């Protein structure tokens, strides 16, 4: 479905070229730096698991020990595998325990020792990468066996009790009631933890901790549901915050299907250092590409802070940047759940037509991406009756503009975390709209030169203008100066900066090589 908006192909090409130009220096930066979380992700792929009695993961203890001895700039894999050889042990987790006890010294090996360490490191990390490959093949098999959802958009529902053992029956009930994708919201503040908690967890603040064990438990439960329902139910979590690369690795290892993964969200909304974010983001996207995971980007967030009409073009700019970064990291179009949202003030005249114009613009700019369509939140007031009506119009835009993933809006948004009945009413709303108007996108062709075409073209024009301005300075400067949202985020500030280092000449990271070259050994 292209050509409904009569977009100027030259302008679209220009927008993509400008996004590439703005993004390129950031990619260069990401390619020449590493972070503690990237290194921890590599060690997780190499098989380090578990946590110390205080709950601090062994990967954190190991990376901290190596960094204390050799710094971060060489990467930690060579010192680690060199130490394994010297200590004559094969278990990396055991090495981490010894390192935490202070009984191992690390050094950056040279000569023959370096060659041997390189070989051993690559072998160990390749085993982790092959596990991700096996998980992907397993998903392909299950999707083939049980099938994809019969309709588009896929219906995406959130659970968030804080207790994984409460989440599981809720998620299974939601799947039975029609959810195609289950997202488990993380505990408030997890994005700012510089480690991934361990084990099954039963306490969280307004969400459930993302841990490898919680991933495994929920995936197993949804496999049961998929079998019962005869359609593959997808699972979503978050690769964001300070542990983005590790979350991606764990998601790949436990066959999660989608991950929230935005290029700028952590910078703007969590004050995480921009360089840390871009380095972590690139690695996490390489892992997602390999794992066949669909990423969901976070453009909806801009519209919760900025005006959804005045700032509509910032969504387009962010989508173009996310697309560029994603392609560069190896993600295919079918993996790009680019985000946008129904957040225009409903009191504004013609707000519904504006929403249609914006949603259709995203659809036409990214025809092969499974766009993620986010429900109203900002103008949900506690008037649940009006909220249900707004959600109905949101669902209608979703189906009329062929969105890929529809996050189900709750009429009790901003009132309570959704009750069982809220979810049921929300799903009823979705089913009604998709049932009554599921094919309407075939008939919906905006009038040539009419309101919707004009509006979409104007937003695209504003996006190109903004990209031109960014191009004149650089994306990092633009972020530092508060171009996105209203936040000024300079590159030398923000959380997690001390966990960033420039590559030394002998930096080695077998995972990057395997992921970039698509190799298995």
């Amino acid at each position, binding site marked *: 479905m292209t050509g409904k908006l009569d977009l100027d192909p030259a302008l679209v090409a220009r927008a993509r070229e400008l996004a590439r130009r703005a993004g390129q220096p950031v990619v260069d930066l990401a390619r020449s730096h590493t972070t503690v979380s990237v290194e921890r992700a590599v060690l997780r792929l190499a098989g380090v698991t578990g946590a110390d009695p205080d709950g601090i993961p062994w990967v954190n203890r190991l990376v901290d020990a190596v960094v204390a001895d050799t710094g971060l700039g060489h990467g930690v894999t060579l010192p680690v595998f060199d130490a394994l050889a010297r200590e004559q042990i094969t278990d990396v987790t055991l090495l981490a325990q010894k390192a935490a006890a202070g009984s191992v010294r690390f050094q950056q090996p040279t000569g023959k020792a370096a060659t041997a360490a390189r070989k051993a490191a690559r072998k160990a990390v390749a085993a982790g990468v092959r596990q991700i490959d096996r998980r992907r093949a397993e998903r392909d098999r299950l999707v083939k066996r049980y099938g994809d959802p019969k309709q588009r958009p896929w219906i995406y529902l959130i659970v968030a009790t804080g207790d994984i053992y409460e989440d599981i029956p809720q998620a299974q009930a939601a799947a039975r009631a029609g959810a195609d994708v289950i997202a488990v919201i993380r505990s408030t503040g997890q994005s*700012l933890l510089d480690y991934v908690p361990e084990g099954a967890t039963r306490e969280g603040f307004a969400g459930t901790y993302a841990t490898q064990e919680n991933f495994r438990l929920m995936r197993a439960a949804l496999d049961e549901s998929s079998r019962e329902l005869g359609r593959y139910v997808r699972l979503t979590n978050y690769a964001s915050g300070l542990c983005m690369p590790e979350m991606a690795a764990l998601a790949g290892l436990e066959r999660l299907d989608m991950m929230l993964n935005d290029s700028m969200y952590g910078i703007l909304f969590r004050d995480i250092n921009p360089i840390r974010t871009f380095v972590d983001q690139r690695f996490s996207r390489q892992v997602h590409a390999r794992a066949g995971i669909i990423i969901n980007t976070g453009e909806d967030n801009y519209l919760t802070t900025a005006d959804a009409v005045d700032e509509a073009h910032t969504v387009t700019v962010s989508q173009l940047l996310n697309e560029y970064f994603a392609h560069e990291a190896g993600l295919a179009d079918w993996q790009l759940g680019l985000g946008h949202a129904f957040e225009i003030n409903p009191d504004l005249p013609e707000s519904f037509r504006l929403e249609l114009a914006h949603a259709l613009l995203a659809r036409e700019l990214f025809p092969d991406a499974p766009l993620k369509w986010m429900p109203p939140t900002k103008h949900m007031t506690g008037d649940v009756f009006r909220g249900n009506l707004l959600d109905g119009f949101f669902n209608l835009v979703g189906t009329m503009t062929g969105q890929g993933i529809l996050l189900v809006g709750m009429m009790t948004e901003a009132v309570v975390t959704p*009750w069982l009945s809220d979810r049921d009413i929300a799903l009823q709303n979705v089913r009604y709209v998709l049932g009554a108007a599921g094919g309407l996108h075939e008939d919906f062709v905006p009038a040539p030169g009419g309101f919707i075409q004009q509006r979409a073209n104007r937003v695209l024009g504003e996006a190109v203008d903004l990209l031109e301005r960014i191009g004149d300075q650089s994306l990092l400067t633009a972020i530092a100066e508060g171009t996105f949202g209203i936040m000024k985020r300079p590159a030398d500030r923000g959380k997690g900066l001390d966990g960033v280092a420039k590559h030394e000449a002998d930096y080695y990271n077998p995972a990057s090589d395997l992921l970039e070259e698509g190799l298995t050994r």
Partner: protein
Amino acid sequence: MSSEERSAFHGHQVEPGDKRIVRPYGDTSGDGMVQISFTLPVPHTKRAEGAALQLAGKMGIDPAMLVHAKPIGDTFTFFVVYGRVNHLVDMSKVQVVERDFPLLSAKEVNAVVKQKLRRKLSVVGACIGTDAHTVGIDAILNVKGIAGEKGLEYYRELKVTNLGAQVSVPELVEAARAEKADAVLVSQVVTQRDAHLHNTREMSAAFREAMPAGKRPLLIVGGPRFDETMTEELGVDRIFGRGTTPGEVASYVVHALITNKKAKV
């Protein structure tokens, strides 16, 4: 008093809308009609519908009309009930706990700061002591905010410095001085051995020592286990407990520093 004011004053007393005894209004005065919805954890059966009506009856709805019952899965049923409540409300006996400051929107907060303070209002926040739980301070300060409300960073007229976790008291005092803080926000989640109380007292004492009364920033602490009435004992201007939103904090800061400025404790 002008005649216009007088009639408005009297009108306030005798306006027909200003009733003393009220009951809900459906479509006729005094009909007492309400509508409620709820879910019971039982399968949808005749007995379940009876249970819904019984619950409505116990809630004072008589007669109750069950207008909608729908199963949610195999083990729950959702109900909508309309009916007449027999309760009356005496408006003169209604008690409300008034917040001692008006709740302002972000826009209003910005406008007050811009018009009355004529510079950005500086807020410095931190988790002090060994407390590494930045959940609270981040919920209040980060743009992300909490419960759909943006944090103080989102307010254009506030200059927010979030020092993060495990900040020492001297560091906090120094940062407050460097940032010319108008208000200092401290979050304390960990309460082992009353750590939150000790840390707060240490913090307020340090500010008292470092700065004269007139120059001291507004001191605000927050956390789930504080008693909001302990301000004097802890030497702070305000304590916020569980469920506080950024908007409440911003409104209070503007109220205390600008619209209702008075000598601090």
